[in-house]
């Protein structure tokens, strides 16, 4: 490609610059250029949510975001989010509830659960189901994933979603 350009944004709290091209997906930039393979490709067309990241705090499917769109933005992946207190609480809930089987969808579900619980700290079961409806899991039938969110609900404070003091901001 002759149209390459330098793309600068904040990734998991740190300023980064990558050489990119107009046809590159954010998912590929994260996996191939930034080496964050925890962001998974399950379908490549926005149906499964395995590639979920936060873009300026909003949950998005990174397979559907052109990398060029994140110039100057704040992108948080599961890798950055895993430095927060909220991650610890949610991940323990997933483990305890038995919500993890093959694990391929799990980072995406963690991001979706975090997005839901940040907006709605004590969701009803219907709200949990709606909040996670953009993510697909073929192993669990979802019951234990919903149990996990129920377990985490009510344990999270707003400050749990920030990186700990001294760390870069997310």
């Amino acid at each position, binding site marked *: 490609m002759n149209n390459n350009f330098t793309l600068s944004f904040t990734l998991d709290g740190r300023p980064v610059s990558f050489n990119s091209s107009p046809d590159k997906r954010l998912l590929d930039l994260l996996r191939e250029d930034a080496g964050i393979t925890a962001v998974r490709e399950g379908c490549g067309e926005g149906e499964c949510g395995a590639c979920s990241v936060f873009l300026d705090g909003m949950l998005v499917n990174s397979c559907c975001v052109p990398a060029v769109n994140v110039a100057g933005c704040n992108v948080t992946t599961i890798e950055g989010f895993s430095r927060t207190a909220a991650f610890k609480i949610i991940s323990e809930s997933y483990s*305890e509830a038995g919500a993890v089987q*093959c694990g391929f969808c799990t*980072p995406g579900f963690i991001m979706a659960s975090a997005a839901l619980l940040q907006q709605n700290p004590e969701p009803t079961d219907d709200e949990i189901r*709606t909040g996670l409806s953009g993510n*697909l899991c073929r192993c669990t039938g979802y019951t234990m994933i919903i149990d996990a969110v129920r377990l985490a609900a009510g344990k999270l404070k707003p400050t749990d979603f920030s990186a700990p003091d001294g760390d870069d901001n997310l």
Partner: protein
Amino acid sequence: MHKISASVNRSDAYDKISGKAEYVSDIQYPDMLYMSFATASIQHGKILKINIPEIPDGFYIIDGKDFPGRNRATIVAQDWPFFAEDEVLYYGQPLLAVAGPDPAECGLLCSSITAEYEELPAVSVIEDAVDFFNDYSIVKGEPQKAFDSAAMIFENSYRTGIQEQAYMEPQGMIAEYKNGVLTVRGSMQCPFYIRNSLMNAFALDAEHVRVIQTETGGAFGGKEDFPSVLAGQAAAAAIKSGKTVKVILDRRFDMMHTPKRHPSLIDIRTAVDNSGKITAMDIDCKIDAGAYQSLSGVVLERAVFVCTGAYNIENISVRGRTMKTNHVPSGAFRGFGGPQSLFAAEMNMYFLAEQLELSPLDLKKRYLFKKNDHSVTSGIFRDDIKFDEMIRMIEDSSDYSNKWEKYNTASKKSKNNLMKGIGISFAAHGGAFTGNGEQELIKSLVKLSAEPSSTAPYNVRILVSNVEMGQGASLTLRKIVAETMKLPLERIIFNRPDTLEVPDSGPTVASRTIMIVGKLLQDAAADLSIKLQTAAAPLSGKPVTVEKRYVHPEEFKWDESTFTGDAYPGYSWSVNVVEVEIDPVTYETHVTGSWAVYDVGTAIDMKVLCGQMQGGTAQSLGYASIEKMQILNGKPGQASFTDYTIPTTLDFPDTFCQFIDNPYRYGPFGAKAAGELPNEGPAGAFAAAVSQAVGKIITEIPVTPEKLEVELG
């Protein structure tokens, strides 16, 4: 509850949650090549010419001539070519591949490759199929006599559709060929199946082929057969280029090119005598094999062996055929022929209940298998079958009979009222390989190794070829060894198998991992404990090991040539209830309740087991309702999650799961087959519920709103 059943958190959870777990798509090697496929643009025809543009330096064309052994994958039968030779038998069949350093460039080169064909007539669906690969017949009792003296004979036909496994991780392989050794890494269920297939394809001996499982993101049977094809294709490129070759399918390619559950068409004639008793069934079971036989014959075996479901019919005549059609070969999917047969068996009982003016449960109860009854293959059910207890439990949890009465007297379709219904189904699943397959074909061998450790007197390593693919084997197999040896769980090690290190304990299929391999490990662990007690200085550097090979219990008899005897060593059972509401205007079906009671012997881990049951139930309900895939104009009509919808959090309620205690004599701590059982029953319960709601029997799944609208109009 046995104390081993108490749940333990999975040790693989954290790496999977945080994303540190490494799947095949995450693995990078320097100087690696990628691979894309040029595929057939017609459904059936002779290849006259393939036009290949100039290929730049560093890129390679791989085709059927690159297999010094045979251009055929070994998937039971040896008929599926890695690349088409003189003809194509299905749309999208790989003609050749391009390997090179830039994946996008490989894709562009493939799209510039064209082929010229002489097109031939094609068959897309089972109804139009004439030719078949396998033709099996079984007779139990004297069906002809029963039909001759029948007071009434009823006939009906049942159909099931294609189902996609939809594992979340698409298929992928990495192959390298160095110093005469071919090494393949990837997402798989059966490392030794792949090794064997590669040995045949490349005329290599076992010492020169190594297969390593990478973290596997779901499989459900879909990574039993196709990985042998993909491994061969990647290996051919690695051998030709001398470089490491990585191939990861994108979702659309994966859905277009990998095997799915066989569609089925099952015709059942039933003889009833003048007292209203079912005396015989004559069953014609056709499953749609697709373009190549591969493992369809084995799927058909399971389908015909359980063709009456959980019901004892005295006289049976069954014919089964694997029909040839022109689409991607059908393959393994959790249940493996069972879900098709059980759907037909369940809905046939529903149909007969209507004909005989009985409630479905009343009729079904009269024929449920009991201990010492004879199976379709005249094998003997040697263990207790506790359906009475299971029915009591599901009546308590679901209130089935009261709801059935209530919905049965309610008025049917009206524009203002939701249509409501409730259905019950019974399911059987024979654990492990069919007949004497465990003894004659698999000959499972396991090994345990007590090894020095810096933190404990020794650790025990499990050496088996069975994989963790999400189902929890990395926890449950360790629990079996830990409990047997009275060691803490953290001292038992289970790694992903590498054929260089582990013995062949068989494939990760057929709900056999706990029942067969787990039992061998339990026995090996008991032996290892004794060996460690008596060893003078057990662990001064050299591991102490024990091996154990499978021996089929003598009481089971099987004649493969006539399909007579004990088709499976042990059976698992379930009762399923599904309740639905149907919108009278849009015909959307909403599942409002789902209950199940299972007999899987002893649970090795209650949470793992519940996870299997809930996940399998969702797959079965999806199969029955929303998962629709067709061959349209010769091509798969649905090849993405946009077109082919699998259940989301919003589709089905939680399944209320209960288990009865019925330890199995030959299983570890009494455990028997579990993983496939939840895919066997719910579809029939769902269809029964919809049948009651709409007042018309459902004989074909999936039951989409569009289909209901046509039926009910």
